[in-house]
Each structure stands twice: as structure tokens, then as C-alpha cells.
């Protein structure tokens, strides 16, 4: 039956398939063709959940959505101060409680229609609607009755403080003066969507209609969606309707879901990418040594810290908490385990958060730590009941926990055990405050100390420590928002943050940094605390190459 004659077509088929394996095309690298055609090849970390601004959360989503859409105001990539987006200007009145946005009459949707103030009212209605399930709805909570509407206490959206006075005038009424509110206009959860497009595919509050697909989506940003191949790439091209199109230099951007950091770095070296989302830790020392290195690192608006359950012994005693924190040699940790890719932190807010510097209430001081521990009843670690550090299963967290375990053993002579849990199990434990000490990170949504300090108000959803102090709550919730000047407000924040660090419900460990590899042909990507990129400022220059050592 299996005679050579029957084999022949099978063999021919096999040969064809193998030929397909080695199919031919052009051999030019993405960087070379991209520089010529104005196409940026961008490593974006992972496949986005989706492109609906009121539905998704996450950093890769943010990069693509902010290429496709534009908010009322955008952040200047150098200073992070707000600059005009859809709104060409805005005015504060009633001591900062009312903001009037004057929309640019030239702002257009990608289908040519004008972006109007009523589009914003409709979109914020959607963002705040109880049925939408927008996880970032709280971004709009400074607006009068926004929170009440989401929680069903107010059912008429007319009572929410956002009104379209005419096509180009949007009036927003806030509960209290909110200095960072303009910044929030650059967050995708406050973006406008095109009402008619959404309604063509479903109800206003539907989460899973195909309105964001190629051919369906209507957006108002510098770029429009051209291709979306799941887990392969997303291509956006320059929009000819964008009001500031003359400033846009790129003709398009290709976003790659570069999940594997090692592969991403290899793609960069092979000139398949202009930009990587991260850099593998073990490659960083090599890149640092290069002359004209493409490696860029800068502080990031995020803090890595340990949560402490202030109701569970032995860490219910503030002296124990302080002893633990003071016996950590953060400089050494950053130098060794973290390869200088972090900045030691002694408080929760990152330094220079729009001009705010947190107080430093303690330092690495093993002698005082030992004394505090003795006062708490554990001289030289005697009688220590044990302590467990919880972290989510990941090599980087384990390394840090092991180093900290060693430091506490050698400085305080106490034994600490480590426990790791899978991500969602760990989240469950943190939410239930079912731990003694747990690893945590917080990345700011906007550049303001409030974003870090309001975590620790009584029963805050992300407090997770049982820390509660009415004076602290009063400072953060009532006194700081009413401060007349930025200096006054920062003074109140300093007061609150000092109180927090004196009680030590968290052990701050380090401030994050972001790291990218950026090809020398890319211009207009500025380092800033938010790692915020505005693609309309990016330009590609031909005839620049990677350092010889990388090729």
C-alpha cells in the first residue's frame, strides 16, 4: 500500500511545506525601512486588553490609546505641565471650583466631524455609568456628584457637574479645588469617544462591542488605527484630520506585544525595534559600559514597599516596625540586588513629584534599630515569635525578600520566613489584610503627592495595613485640597507624610526607575517621571546606527 508511487505526492507536499518555511521577501531591517518611511517600531510589552478608553486599564493600552485619542489637555513631555489638547485653553473660577474648557474648533474626529463639548458630556456619562464597569471611574470623582452617580445615589446625570454650554465650551464643577484635575484630562478614562460610532454597535454601557476594530473605530488623536493583528502587532498611521497634524512627524507607529524581555532585547539588537519597553536586568551592566549607549534610565513615579499588618503581633508594635525599617540597608540593596536600577526610598512619595520632596524621618541605623527592638521586648532577637514576608511569585521579588531576610538576620538576629503566592491569590491575601508583611508596589496615575498619600486614609481600598488616624485623614481629605498655594499644600502633605512615616505602617524600600533601549535615530523622547511619551513630538533621523559593539 505504501509503494513509492503513493509516497511521491506526499513527498512533493512535504517539500512545498518546507519551502514555505524559508519563503523569501526583502531582507531590510525594520529600523532602516522605518527611518526611511517615518514608521516607528515600538516594543509595547504585551497585547493590549482592548482599545476602549473607558473599559481597559494598563500601561500598554495607555500607549496605544494615547496615540489614537487625545484628551482635553495633554502633558508636556519635558515638564509634565499641562498644555493644550482638544481644549485650546481653560479658565478657573469660583476659587478653582469651576473649570471652563474652551475646545479647539479645529479639533476633529477621524471621520471629519467636529469634537464637541456634548461629546464630552456623553463620554463622561458613559465613563461614570454604574453599568459600564469602568475601573478608572474614580478619576472623575473630583467632579460634583460623579461618585454619587456611579454609586447609584444620584440617578439623573444632569446633576453631575459637567455641562456643555455650547459646541466648544465645556463647564466642569468640582467638589473642591483640585489642583491636579487638569492633569487627569490626559488620562484615557476621561477621554471622549464618538457617540454615534458606539451606538452603531451597541448600548452606551456595553463593554464588548466591536466598535474599536479596524474600520469601525473613530478617534480624535494624532494617529488612526490601520491594522490590529492579535498578539502580532498593531499599526497606527498619521491622521489627516488631527488639528495639530503639522507638528506630527511620524507617518505611523507599529506596536509589538513584546512579552518576553529577552526576545525584545534581541529584536532591538537586530534592529527590528526602535524602542524597548524594558531591559533585562542582567544585560544592564553591559549596556551601561557601552560608549553612546542606547540604554536610558530615569526615576519613575512609583514606590516599592512592604505593607505591614498593624494589628498582628509582633508588628502591631510601632517600635518593631521602625526597627525593621531602620535595619534595612537600602543603598546596599540597590547596589547589589537591583544593579543600580532603583533609588533608595525612605517615604512613600517619590522625590520631586512636581516639585514636592517627601520628608526623610529616619535613616539606616542598625544600632537604634536594635535598641528599639530591645525596648519592644526582643533584646538581640530573643523571644522573637517569627515573621513571614508574603510576595507574589516572581524571581525579582524573591531576590529582594531574600536580601531583606539576610539583613534582618544579621542586624537584628531575628528569623523571618518567606512565602510566595500566585498573583491573584496574593492579591486576595493583600485585600483581606491576611499577612504580617507583604510586598507591594504603587505606580502613580497622576503627578501629585496626593496620589500616594490618599492611599492611607482610614479604610482606603489600597490602605491594606489597618493604619487609621483621623488627623491624617483630615489633612489629606479636607485641609490639603483647600490650601491656597502650592507651597501651603506641600507643607500640609509634608506634615501628613511625616505622621505616616512615624507610625511606619509600610516599609518604603525603593523608588522605581524606568529603563528603555532607544535607537539613536529616534529624537523627541524625553525622560520624565511619568515615563510619558507624546508621539507627536517624536522624529526619526536616518543614518544613525547602533554602537559597533552591539552589531
Amino acid at each position, binding site marked *: 500500500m*505504501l509503494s513509492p508511487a503513493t509516497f511521491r505526492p506526499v513527498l512533493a507536499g512535504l517539500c512545498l511545506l518546507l519551502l514555505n518555511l524559508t519563503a523569501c521577501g526583502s531582507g531590510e531591517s525594520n529600523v532602516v525601512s522605518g527611518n526611511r518611511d517615518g514608521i516607528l517600531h515600538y516594543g509595547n510589552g504585551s497585547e493590549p486588553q482592548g482599545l*476602549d478608553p473607558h473599559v481597559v486599564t494598563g500601561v500598554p493600552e495607555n500607549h496605544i490609546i494615547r496615540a489614537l485619542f487625545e484628551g482635553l489637555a495633554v502633558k508636556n513631555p519635558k515638564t509634565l505641565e499641562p498644555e493644550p489638547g482638544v481644549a485650546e485653553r481653560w479658565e478657573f473660577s469660583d476659587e478653582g471650583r469651576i473649570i471652563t474648557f474652551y475646545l479647539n474648533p479645529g479639533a476633529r474626529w477621524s471621520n471629519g466631524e467636529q469634537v464637541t463639548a456634548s461629546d464630552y458630556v456623553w463620554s463622561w456619562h458613559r465613563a461614570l455609568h454604574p453599568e459600564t464597569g469602568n475601573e478608572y471611574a474614580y478619576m472623575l470623582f473630583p467632579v460634583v456628584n460623579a461618585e454619587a452617580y456611579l454609586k447609584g445615589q444620584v440617578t439623573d446625570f444632569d446633576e453631575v457637574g459637567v455641562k456643555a454650554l455650547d459646541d466648544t465650551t465645556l463647564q466642569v464643577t468640582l467638589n473642591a479645588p483640585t489642583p491636579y484635575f487638569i492633569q487627569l484630562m490626559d488620562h484615557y478614562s476621561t477621554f471622549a469617544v464618538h457617540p454615534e460610532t458606539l451606538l452603531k454597535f451597541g448600548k452606551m454601557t456595553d*463593554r464588548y462591542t466591536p*466598535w474599536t476594530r479596524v474600520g469601525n473605530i473613530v478617534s480624535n488623536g494624532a494617529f488612526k488605527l490601520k491594522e490590529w493583528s*492579535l498578539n502580532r502587532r498593531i499599526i497606527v498611521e498619521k491622521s489627516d484630520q488631527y488639528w495639530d497634524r503639522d507638528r506630527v512627524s511620524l507617518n505611523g507607529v507599529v506596536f509589538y506585544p513584546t512579552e518576553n524581555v529577552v*526576545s525584545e532585547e534581541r529584536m532591538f539588537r537586530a534592529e527590528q525595534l526602535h524602542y524597548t519597553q524594558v531591559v533585562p536586568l542582567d544585560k544592564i551592566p553591559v549596556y551601561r559600559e557601552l560608549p553612546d549607549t542606547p540604554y536610558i534610565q530615569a526615576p519613575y513615579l512609583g514606590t516599592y514597599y512592604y505593607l505591614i499588618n498593624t494589628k498582628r503581633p509582633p508588628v502591631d508594635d510601632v517600635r518593631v516596625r521602625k526597627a525593621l525599617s531602620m535595619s534595612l540597608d537600602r543603598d546596599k540593596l540597590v547596589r547589589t540586588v537591583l544593579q543600580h536600577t532603583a533609588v533608595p526610598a525612605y517615604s512613600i512619595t517619590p522625590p520631586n513629584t512636581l516639585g514636592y520632596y517627601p520628608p526623610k524621618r529616619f535613616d539606616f541605623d542598625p544600632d537604634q534599630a536594635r535598641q528599639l527592638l530591645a525596648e519592644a521586648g526582643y533584646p538581640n532577637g530573643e523571644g522573637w515569635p517569627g515573621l513571614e514576608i508574603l510576595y507574589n511569585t516572581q524571581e525579582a521579588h524573591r531576590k529582594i525578600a531574600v536580601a531583606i531576610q539576610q539583613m534582618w538576620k544579621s542586624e537584628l538576629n531575628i528569623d523571618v520566613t518567606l512565602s510566595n503566592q*500566585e498573583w491573584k491569590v496574593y492579591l486576595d491575601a493583600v485585600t483581606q489584610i491576611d499577612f504580617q508583611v507583604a510586598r507591594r508596589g504603587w505606580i502613580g496615575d497622576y503627578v501629585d503627592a496626593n496620589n500616594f498619600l490618599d492611599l492611607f486614609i482610614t479604610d482606603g481600598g489600597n490602605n491594606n495595613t489597618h493604619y487609621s488616624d483621623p488627623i491624617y485623614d483630615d489633612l489629606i481629605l479636607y485641609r490639603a485640597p483647600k490650601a491656597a498655594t502650592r507651597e501651603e499644600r506641600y507643607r500640609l502633605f509634608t506634615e501628613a507624610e511625616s505622621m505616616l512615616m512615624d507610625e511606619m505602617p509600610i516599609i518604603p524600600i525603593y523608588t522605581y526607575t524606568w529603563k528603555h533601549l532607544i535607537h539613536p535615530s529616534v529624537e523627541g523622547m524625553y525622560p520624565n517621571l511619568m515615563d510619558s511619551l507624546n508621539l507627536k513630538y517624536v522624529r526619526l533621523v536616518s543614518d544613525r546606527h547602533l554602537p559597533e559593539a552591539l552589531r
Partner: protein
Amino acid sequence: MLRFILIRLLQALPVILVVITATFFLVRSAPGGPFDQEKVVIPEVKRALEAQYRLDLPLHEQYFAYLGDLAQGDLGPSFKYPGRSVNEILFSGLPVTAELGLYALLIALSIGVLAGVLASLRPNTVQDYIPMSLAMIGICMPSFLLEPLLVLVFGIWLDWLPITGWGDIPGDKILPSITLGAAYAAYIARLSRAGMLEILSQDYIRTARAKGLSEFRVVTKHALRGGLIPVVAFLGPAFAGLLAGSFVVETIFQIPGLGRFYVQAAFNRDYTMILGTTVFLSTLIVFFNIVSDVVAAWLNPRLRGQLGGGR
């Protein structure tokens, strides 16, 4: 034969139902849910999300609703990727993963059968030891080790082949196919060696040789058909395994296939996605097992008789 196939298909249904039920309830018993995030979600928002995805119903109602949808071929919306249905994600990744699996299998077959047959012709000589030692190494070496080695040598040192992508740059399909196929090539080599050794000692092979046939004809015309039965039996599960097991290869080579979703769905607690991929892959495994049983029966007349099929 037809009756045999029918019986096997009917037996498969309860197996798949058990898989669905076990997966459904196991997934739900895992701590944490699809909407748990590092930044805590407002309770009202979480309730709205659960209502949109039917998670507010009692568990048994969700189960029967799911079975109802499944009977109509609807695997539900993905939790992690709002706007995409599980069907859509599966069928966008399947062609790529199937293509990768197919190439890997072809590579595995061509290398494996060749090595196995060569080894079986001169057992316990160098011609046997070398391919079989290589096969042992192939079985032992995980793809996350083989991949960097191949990439280093062929992608970076020699600069012959692209190191990521799928169908973007010429030749980018070669390294992933080899990486994925290597372990299977090793299994196939061992299986075909064992099968061939048994057949080559049979009387009818001696007869064929006595007729004066060349060794090449003896092997290709007479011995191979019987000797490769174990390989054929292995192919069905192997192909299903290739589809389900391509996660590592797909991630490191940036291939837009199915394997990535399969593993991530579990971490994301993307309930419908976990169920969809599990149901889909278990159905495939059951199906390929039936196919390989049928092919084995077709290759082996003795088995065919025992099955009491349609003569």
C-alpha cells in the same frame, strides 16, 4: 471500521463533559477573580462588571448557562480582552499554532524516522549509539534551553536566520519549528528504532531478503510499514501536544499563536478563556487519539480483525 469509529466518538463525549465540568468548578475554586487588580476596584464597579459577565448568578446557573452556550458553539466573551470573544481569539491563533505544529511535526518525523531507522539497521554499533544518544539529549533538553542556543548560533553568531516573528521576515519560521520539533524528533527516533528492530527480526523480512531484494527495498517496502506503527500511534497525541505545548516557543519567538493565551488565561482568571482553551484542546486530544487509533488499525491487519469492523 465505521462502527469502531462511531463507538470511539460516543465514548469521547462523556470524557469531554467531565473535562468541562472539572475545569469549570476548579477554576472557580481558585482564589481571586478576573476583576481583582493591584489597584483595588470600587465595589459598585466590580458588581457592574460581574453583572455584565453573568458572574452575579448562582454558580450552578452559570454552569448550565455555559453549557447551553457551548452547545451552540459559543465560548463566551473574554474577560481579559473585552470586545473579543473566546471563539475569535482561538480561531485567530489556531492557524498559526497549527502551522507551527505541523512544521515541527514534519521536522520531527524526518529527523526522527531517519535516525531511528539508521540506528535499527546496525543495533549496538556506533551507527546506533550516536543517533540514540542525540535523541536522549533531545528528550532531556527543554525548549527554553534549546531556543537560546539555536538563536545564539544561527541568529547572532552566524546571522543566518531571523530570531523573532512569524511570516514577517524570510526564514523566521525555521528556528521556532526546529525548537518545537526537536524533543518530538527524539521520541520518534526511539519509537521507530524499537518498532523497526522488532519487525526486522520477523520471518517475512527474512523471506524478502532471501528473495534477493536489496536492503533498501527490504526496509522501505516491507519493514517500514510495520515498523512505524508505534510512531503513528504517537502522532495523534503528539500533534495535540504540539498545539497545547507551544507556549514557550511562541512567547520567546513572538509568534501570534494560541499557546500564549492558554497559559496566560489561567493567571488572569479569565474564566471563559480558560474553559474555552481547555475544552478546545481536550477535544483535539481526544479527536487525534481516535484518528491515530484508526490509522493504526488500518496499518495493522491483525488489529483490524480484532476490532470486528466492517469487512
